[in-house]
């Protein structure tokens, strides 16, 4: 195969530039323009929110007629917005820690262990990612009512952990599978016990996967609306719930300020995840 492919390849490389030189690649130009428009469709709405959040007008328009921080002032001055934000951060942070600890332990078992029913367990763990949130929401609501967990902090945290654990397991399992088990065997043959092997060999190697999983887990909870809508209650209202209210009645321009801060936050998270991944690959 390789012997026949090599001359073919050389011949192709030799003919290719000659063909390109005398014709404008129209199909390529059209494809590029189309792709640029699709990228614009994806990014422009997100990007346009940021300048609009600094608008001095009472009504949102683009480009803004003048600059002001009125919507940011409004956000920080109003207790319903700030308390919802603080509640979301508290919930998401707790979920992140819980889901990461549970998810790393489960990934070790699923990748390294072999026991009956492993495939089914795997399936159960990833299924919260595809089962529609509305189903999870009313199912959990149905049992929370009887367990008196509706409108409690831990009720929401546990429900969000169910949704967040799969992200940790998927990311950590992927790094665990790509990791040479002989490194662990070497550590053990040098006298390390199971904990030491995990702490000094496995953990540092899989830390990029854990970091990515933890970030996903945080976002999964922080952005989650539907489950919270059913079980959080008015007193434990999260930021997505407050935003949803603000969008359902009349479109509250304060949301422009909130949105801009959230966009900045996700860009920072994305950048740090990318940075961590690059550093782990060493390029």
């Amino acid at each position, binding site marked *: 195969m390789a012997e026949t492919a090599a001359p073919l390849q050389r011949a192709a490389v030799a003919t290719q530039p000659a063909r390109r030189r005398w014709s404008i690649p129209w*199909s390529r130009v059209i494809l590029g323009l189309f792709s640029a428009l699709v990228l614009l469709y994806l990014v422009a709405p997100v990007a346009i929110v940021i300048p609009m959040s600094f608008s001095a007008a009472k009504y*949102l328009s683009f480009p803004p007629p003048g600059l002001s921080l009125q919507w940011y002032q409004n956000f920080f001055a109003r207790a319903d917005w700030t308390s919802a934000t603080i509640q979301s951060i508290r919930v998401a942070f707790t979920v992140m820690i819980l889901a990461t600890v549970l998810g790393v*332990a489960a990934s070790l078992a699923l990748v390294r262990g072999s026991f009956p029913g492993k495939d089914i367990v795997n399936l159960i763990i990833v299924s919260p990612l595809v089962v529609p949130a509305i189903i999870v929401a009313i*199912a959990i609501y*149905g049992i929370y009512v009887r367990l008196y967990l509706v409108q409690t902090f831990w009720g929401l945290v546990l429900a969000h952990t169910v949704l967040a*654990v799969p992200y940790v397991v998927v990311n950590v399992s992927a790094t665990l599978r790509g990791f040479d088990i002989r490194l662990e065997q070497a550590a053990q043959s040098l006298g390390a016990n*199971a904990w030491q092997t995990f702490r000094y060999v496995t953990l540092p190697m899989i830390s990029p996967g854990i970091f990515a999983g933890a970030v996903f887990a945080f976002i999964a909870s922080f952005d989650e609306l539907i489950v919270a809508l059913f079980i959080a209650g008015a007193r434990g209202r999260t930021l997505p719930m407050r935003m949803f209210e603000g969008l359902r009645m009349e479109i509250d321009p304060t949301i422009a300020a909130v949105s801009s801060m959230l966009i900045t936050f996700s860009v920072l998270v994305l950048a740090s995840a990318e940075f961590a991944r690059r550093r782990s690959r060493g390029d």
Partner: protein
Amino acid sequence: MTTGEVLAGRAYRESTTSRRLEFRRQLGYFLLLLPTLLLLLVLFVYPIVRLIVTSVYDGNHFTLEHYRRIVEVDLYLRVLQTTFTIALQVTLLCLILGYPLAYFLATLRARTARLLMILVLIPFWTSILVRTYAWMVLLQRQGVFNRWLLELGLIDEPLRMMYNRIGVLVGMTHVLLPFMVLPAYAVMRGIDRNLLRAAYNLGASPFQAFLMVFLPLSLPGVAAGSLLVFILALGFFITPALMGGRTDMMIAQLIETQIRTQLNFPFAAALAAVLLVITLVIFAIYNRLLGLDKMFGGGY
């Protein structure tokens, strides 16, 4: 005792101790898994099973009354139909917009492609509520698009681009497009370019080479993306609730109103069961075709 017997005895003892060690190791793994497994059994599997039981069992006997209602009442049938139509339309839109973009990115140098991919990932990582808000600001009656069009004199009165199907399709496609582009791009990147060169060399035009070599090879990524977009679209709530028309209700909205305003839990449970079965069937097709491990967190 002969030496042979001694050796056999030692081998037997060693194999039992190693078997015992192996058993302890596996038990250790199982214990690591146990907390997560318990959490999911108690707060995911059991609630969903109970939900389905509620939909067919009224406390005393078995009943299919709620399912009969879904099929017999026009309003509910129409909601199911709308849900399918919207999911299909969104999947097609994602395909039409996503395939060329993924193809274009896959033909660029890896470095350039990764930079442009950031433009796909930023919206992907941004909250759905934020994105829906952005579209509401752009599309509403007094919104940015209508003002521009009015100022340019292209229209005399504001267009209705929201609280109808257009708004839902624009908003949902925007949210779901990355789920098409990411797997499609990952598969297209992996296609060996020499195969295309070979096709040119055998006399294929660029279009023929694309159609007969590249397209079939890219199908797994496209299928993965399409199934994922379709599954996610079926259960969509936020965008149709905020940007949809009153008569254009999707199933997740119907479930929500049945619980929050009608307080009809068994009927909502029946609707949820229908949605769940459809989702799981597509999920099973996906698993059979492509394997679940490809679904999330891989590729890009």
